[in-house]
């Protein structure tokens, strides 16, 4: 029983990392219609930057999260400014998506160049330490991740529904033309989206890297968050959170009870199944868009 509980906590913790990345990913999609293939690699850069900061400065974890987050936010903004914004005028979404694939390759190779190929472990002080609480091994890191994720979701939900800016962002995603007619400054909204999602990705990167390791192929973990985003209903921020947690749980339980080797396949197959049966995801509202 305590074993199951431990698994659940771990699954939720992993899930919350997926959620953080998925939320950013969904936000970008929601606001700009773009599939940002380089987003998981931004997470990876966050992890790498965090590594460098951790080894050089030894700042406490929350600060590390913050600093990496800000760095990646800036990077995300830069890529949008330099790479995407000029292309948005062309209006070809498919081209943009392909361009993000290009950026993904660039980021991975930059990381390779700067940090090399070997996986890098965070200094001892940052590694997760389990504590026994009531007979269960609890990893504060996992709970922290869960907490951060939850806070982020609530904050974002409020942001999207209660604040003027957030509603404007939503409106932009639903119907950019109408939004523009209503006087919403689209470009500003998009900039904000890239900053915010970059921040979340960077922070998530630190969390992941501290548990696993910092390496150029960390983006592969991020790719699973695509699944989380779609699972929860692509473009829905709350859905991304739920999707991430669900994915983490399914993956962890699947790895333990079924087979560790096939856990990725299970996760992905689940995703495709959901896409087939319920294309708008678990939480997605039936979109008014025809077909």
């Amino acid at each position, binding site marked *: 029983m305590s074993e199951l509980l431990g698994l659940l906590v771990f699954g939720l913790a992993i899930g919350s990392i997926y959620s953080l990345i998925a939320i950013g990913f969904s936000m970008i999609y929601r606001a700009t219609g773009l599939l940002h293939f380089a987003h998981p690699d931004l997470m990876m850069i966050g992890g790498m930057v965090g590594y460098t900061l951790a080894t050089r400065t030894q700042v406490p974890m929350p600060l590390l999260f913050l600093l990496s987050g800000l760095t990646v936010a800036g990077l995300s903004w830069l890529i949008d400014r330099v790479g995407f914004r000029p292309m948005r005028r062309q209006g070809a979404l498919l081209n943009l998506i392909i361009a993000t694939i290009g950026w993904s390759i660039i980021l991975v190779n930059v990381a390779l160049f700067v940090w090399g190929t070997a996986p890098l472990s965070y200094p001892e002080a940052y590694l997760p330490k389990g504590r026994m609480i009531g007979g269960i091994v609890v990893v504060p890191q996992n709970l922290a991740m869960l907490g951060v994720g939850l806070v982020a979701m609530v904050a974002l939900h409020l942001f999207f529904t209660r604040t003027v800016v957030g509603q404007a962002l939503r409106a932009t995603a*639903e119907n950019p033309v109408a939004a523009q007619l209503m006087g919403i400054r689209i470009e500003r909204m998009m900039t904000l989206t890239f900053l915010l999602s970059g921040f979340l990705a960077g922070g998530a990167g630190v969390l992941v890297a501290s548990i696993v390791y910092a390496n150029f192929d960390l983006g592969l973990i991020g790719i699973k968050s695509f699944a989380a985003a779609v699972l929860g209903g692509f473009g829905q921020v709350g859905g991304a959170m739920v999707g991430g947690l669900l994915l983490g749980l399914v993956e962890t339980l699947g790895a333990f009870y079924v087979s560790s080797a096939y856990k990725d396949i299970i996760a992905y197959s689940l995703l495709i199944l959901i896409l087939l049966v319920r294309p708008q995801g678990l939480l997605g509202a039936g979109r*008014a868009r*025809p*077909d």
Partner: protein
Amino acid sequence: MRAATAGGAGRGALGDAVTVAMLETERISKRFDGLVAVDGVDLAVERGEIRGIVGPNGAGKTTLFNLISGLYRVTGGRIRMGGRDVTDASPHARAAAGLGRTYQTPQIFPELSIFDNVAVGLAGARRPTLRDALVGSRRLREDARGAVEATLGFVRLPVALGALAATLSFAEQKRLELARALMGGPAVLLLDEPAAGLNRGEIAALVELVREIHGRGVTVVLIEHNMKLVMGLCGRITVLDFGRKIAEGTADEVRRDPLVVTAYLGRSAGAGV
């Protein structure tokens, strides 16, 4: 319910069932995330009518057309063509069943030739399949060419088949789109603001053309802001405002209806009634 192929008289297979409306919407609604664009509209267009749909901007007229042609899914109500429920049918199925449509701004294929533009209209009647592509016969091609030429002649668009559609003028593009819609041999033709952007001469020619199309047995439903055109051409008129039907009847009846006068005609008094 299949209408005859290109050029011939449009005639539904259910053409003998006189009591069944050609096109019917039953309390259809469309809601977009809180905004109600169309609210419980009942419409029954009989065979052989020329029906006008009018109303102020934003009344939901184009949305209604989008619902009828299947581009939007209804949030309530049913749609029937010749008695057959098509509410869940895809746009292409409705086209194949005899529904033709043109748009406010001509939706043509600019980088395709005139021939190709019009030939696409055959897709409902003659589905472009893989097998045909591989084994297609010369006769089919020549039949298509003949039909395209006939239709272009009918809409008075004497341009070279090989020219690019983008080279046409606005009025010509509207005719091109109309030709495409006619290729499918529609039983019901939806025209969305066919007179928009045309000068007086072109409008007169348009009226002639619509009458000829109607004369061939096609039921016409058109959205228009040009009240003179509507009053002159349409037998019956349906008036929408804020997504609801507020009046319906002959031109005279509608003109006199106080609701209509306040909601619409009164607002645009002097706009050419």
